[in-house]
């Protein structure tokens, strides 16, 4: 069980702090696959990275992350290390190039395991078993990454990332670079791994709502460094409460089309700059329902069991 409370992460730049995560609180239950969606630049990857490893420019500003009742020392790179891979793991956005190009895959994995104080040989059978689940033969371990297709690499990375049965897996855009057939396989694998108990809970970041509808138990929508809405997948799809969520879904005429990059045709304007975000509701400029009260920031509150929203109008909608 993951619990994040009031997490704040900034990027340091000369122009000032980019407030990429500005007070984010949510939880992911054991066995839950939570989808994470939102326009490009809203802070999805930042959230994913914050839970496992802060990059050089990322600055921890505040908040707490608890995983299975242990507080994760996310601000302390060294103290965090024991948790990485074993408790929290990631399938990065760039899985295509995540493997060292000049090492045979099996050898690289052994070296990594050894560096983490484990024995590659003892884990080998399990590794091969899991590769087989995803339709890969043990041969791949003797190959160089360049010999594998994109989808194969993606699956190898998935198997490696989850090899130590982490409690939480972050999967960032794991399907976006793949062809449709591979997308299906990888998405299926996510569910399969959860069902088999290799991973307790997952955060799946994607632009592809079709994939989310297929794999996620719940979906969380982010907007400009803040949370907009979190609810079970059905609720989000059928009865979204936040105007942004509804526009997001509405701007997708067919399921399966991705709201990728830049502007959404259905929503006028752009997200605000995260350097000096406006006070009040951040969606105010673009929100068709905005009214006086929106000059105050709406709290992220539960309007129904498992359904949280940050919008002054949300209650009315849920009721009406």
């Amino acid at each position, binding site marked *: 069980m993951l619990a994040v409370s009031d997490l704040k992460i900034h*990027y*340091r*730049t*000369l*122009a*000032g702090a*980019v407030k990429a995560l500005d007070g984010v609180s949510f939880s992911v239950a054991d066995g839950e696959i939570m989808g994470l969606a939102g326009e490009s*630049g809203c802070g999805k990857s930042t959230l994913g990275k914050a839970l496992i490893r802060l990059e*050089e*420019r990322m600055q921890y500003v505040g908040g707490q992350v608890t995983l299975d009742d242990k507080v994760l020392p996310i601000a302390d790179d060294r103290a965090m290390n024991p948790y990485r891979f074993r408790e929290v793991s990631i399938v990065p956005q760039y899985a295509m190039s995540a493997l060292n190009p000049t090492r045979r895959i099996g050898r690289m994995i052994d070296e990594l395991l050894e560096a983490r104080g484990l024995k590659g040989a003892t884990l080998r059978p399990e590794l091969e078993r899991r590769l087989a689940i995803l339709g890969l033969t043990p041969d791949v371990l003797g190959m160089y990454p360049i010999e594998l297709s994109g989808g194969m690499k993606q699956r190898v990375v998935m198997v490696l990332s989850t090899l130590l049965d982490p409690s939480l897996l972050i999967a960032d855009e794991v399907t976006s670079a793949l062809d449709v057939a591979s997308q299906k396989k990888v998405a299926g694998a996510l569910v399969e791994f959860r069902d088999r108990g290799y991973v307790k809970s997952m955060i799946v970041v994607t632009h592809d709502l079709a994939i989310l509808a297929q794999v996620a138990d719940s979906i969380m929508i982010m907007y400009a460094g803040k949370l907009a809405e979190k609810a079970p997948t059905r609720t989000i799809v059928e009865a979204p409460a936040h105007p942004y969520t509804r526009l997001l879904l509405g701007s997708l005429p067919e399921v399966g089309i991705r709201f990728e990059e830049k502007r959404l045709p259905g929503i006028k304007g752009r997200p605000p*700059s*995260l*350097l000096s975000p406006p006070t009040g509701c951040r969606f105010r400029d673009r929100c068709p329902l905005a009214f006086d009260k929106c000059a105050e920031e709406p709290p992220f509150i539960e309007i129904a069991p498992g359904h949280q929203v940050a919008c002054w109008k949300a209650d009315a909608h849920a009721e009406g």
Partner: protein
Amino acid sequence: MTSTTGSSPAAPAAKSGRNEILYFALRNTKLVIGAIVFIVFLLGAIFGPMLATHEPLTFDAPPGLPPSADYWFGTTLFGQDVFSQFVHGLRSSFIVGALGGITAAVIGMLVGFFAGYRGGIIDEVLNMLTNVVLVIPTFAVLLVVAAYLSVRGLGTEAMFIGLTSWPWAARAIRAQTFSLTSRDFVGMARLNGESTFRIIFGEIAPNMSSYLVMTFILLFGGAILTAATLDFIGLGPTDSISLGLMMNYSVMNAALQLGMWWWFVPPGLAITAIVGSLYVMNVGLDEVFNPKLRAL
């Protein structure tokens, strides 16, 4: 390192474009220091010869004098004014560097643009040509050519250096062009039926202008170094003085044994400083143009 720094996709919206570049440029220590050193020597090359009170090649001074008020950099074994030679040599270096750099940049750009943009057989042929010139030890070619040319001026020297030093630039520009060619705006221009020439110089070149500037800087520095080396072997211009030639004369005439450091230290020091400042400026420019490299 001062805190030059980072922008990102969400960079300051207010300071955009040119302003932002200038803002970071002035705060980049490497670029500023490099530029200052370079400009100091450039000014020396432009105005130095006017300051010189003696002719560079006439033998009208007492021989072998160390630096003094009359002869700021001393005199050679034969009674020539070292300061005058030095500033005239500086001028030669800048001229050869600029001409050689321009020649190489023009060839490198033409080859790189066309190979990268047109692809196919043109690319194959140009690539082959690039590879051949790349593996030939160009210095050896210059050696033979210069040895046979009995009258050589700065221009000839610069041209030969330019003709042999373009391949790496062509290669780098080709790769850049290649990646730009697949972008939307080039595709649009293509669809609109614009000519290759217009697309290359109207769309592609402006989009990699910072890269081209940096390439030229490196070619400029390389040309100065090559020229100095050729001059030192005695294959430089026969009609003027140069920094390499000064080193040649000093070594050939026992300046080392006689400890006449004022004869050989200034020319080498100047070359090192000019070329070094160019390299450092290049690193600085890279940081300015490439937000990822801006150190925090």
